[in-house]
C-alpha cells in the first residue's frame, strides 16, 4: 500500500519526452481546418506560435484552456498566436466538437484575434502526434523552429510564458 504512495509521488518527478523528433526541429508544413477553411502552419511564419493539439474529453485540456484564457493579457503583450486544434478524430475517442468545447470552457476566446480554433488534419496527426497524446503542444518560434514540446499548459505555463517573453528555453 505504501508502495502506491511512493509510486504516485515519484510520477510527479517523471519527465516525458513527447517530441516526435529531437528538439529543436523545423515544424513540418501541415494543414488544419478552422472555420471550414484549410490553413497551413507556414501561414504563421514570422510569429511566435503555440500549436496545441488536444482531445475534448481530456481533463487537462479543460483546465488548460481556462488557464490559457486567463493569461490573455500576456499573450496580447507578447503577440503569441494560439492554434488550439482538436486532435484528428478527437484522438480516436468521442467527445464534443471544438465550438461547443470552447463555448463551455473559454467563451471569451471566440472574439480574440490571436486564437485560432480548429481541427487537426490526419497528416498533422501522423507527423506530430503519432503516439496519440490527448494533450500536446509545440512552441514554434518566428523561424518555424519547434523550441519545446510539452503537455498540460496549465501546469507547464512557466515554459509558455518564458517562450512568449522571448527567453531561451534550452
Amino acid at each position, binding site marked *: 500500500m505504501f508502495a502506491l504512495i511512493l509510486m*504516485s509521488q515519484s510520477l510527479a518527478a517523471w519527465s516525458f519526452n513527447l517530441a516526435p523528433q529531437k528538439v529543436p526541429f523545423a515544424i513540418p508544413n501541415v494543414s488544419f481546418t478552422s472555420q471550414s477553411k484549410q490553413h497551413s502552419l507556414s501561414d504563421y511564419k514570422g510569429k511566435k506560435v503555440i500549436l496545441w493539439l488536444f482531445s475534448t474529453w481530456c481533463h*487537462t485540456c479543460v483546465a488548460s484552456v481556462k488557464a490559457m484564457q486567463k493569461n490573455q493579457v500576456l499573450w496580447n503583450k507578447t503577440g503569441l498566436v494560439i492554434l488550439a486544434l482538436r486532435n484528428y478524430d478527437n484522438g480516436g475517442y468521442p467527445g464534443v466538437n471544438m465550438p461547443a468545447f470552447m463555448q463551455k470552457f473559454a467563451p471569451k476566446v471566440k472574439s480574440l484575434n490571436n486564437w485560432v480554433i480548429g481541427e487537426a488534419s490526419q497528416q498533422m496527426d501522423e507527423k506530430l502526434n503519432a503516439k496519440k497524446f490527448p494533450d500536446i503542444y509545440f512552441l514554434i518560434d518566428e523561424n518555424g523552429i519547434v523550441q519545446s514540446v510539452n503537455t498540460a499548459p496549465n501546469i507547464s505555463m512557466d515554459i509558455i510564458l518564458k517562450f512568449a517573453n522571448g527567453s531561451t528555453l534550452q
Partner: protein
Amino acid sequence: MNTIISALKTVLKIQSYQWIASISFLLFLMLYLTTLPASYTGGYSSFEALQYLNPILISFSLLMSLLVALMMPLIIYLIRQGQKSSKSSATGGLLIGVLAPMLCCSPLLPIAIGFIASVLPAMGGTFGIQIQGFIATHQIELFTAASLLLWYSLYQNAKRVIRGVQCRT
C-alpha cells in the same frame, strides 16, 4: 454493517490500533487529495494538484481514505493474531482509485502503448486512447467501484476478526 461495527469495536478499543487508524487516515487522505485531481495535471500527483479539487473529488478522497483507515487496523490485528487477512480487493480498490486519474490524460499510457506496440504491433493503434478516453469520461464510476472494493475488503476483514473472536471464546 453490524459485522463491521462489531469488528471495529473489538479492534479500536486498543489504543495502538486507534493510532494506526488515525495515521492511516491522514496519510491516505493526503495521497487521495493529491492523486485524484491528477487527471487535471497530466498525471502529476503533487500539491499543485490541490487547486483542481472539487466537491466530488474531496468527497471520494474522504470516503476512500476513511475506508482504508478503518481497514488497516483490522488487517494488522488479523496478522498479529496469526490469521489470514483479505488484501486482494483492498489492493484492487487502491489501484483503481490511484491509477485511474494518473492514466487518464497523462502521456504515460501512450508512451507505454507505443513501447508495447513496437514489440506487438496489434496492441498499437487507438488502444491506449480508448482506455484513456474511457477513464476520463467514467471517472466517477471508477471511483465508486474503487470505494465498493474497499468497502468489500473492510467487510471481509471485519468478518475474519469476528470469526477469530468467536473461535477464541
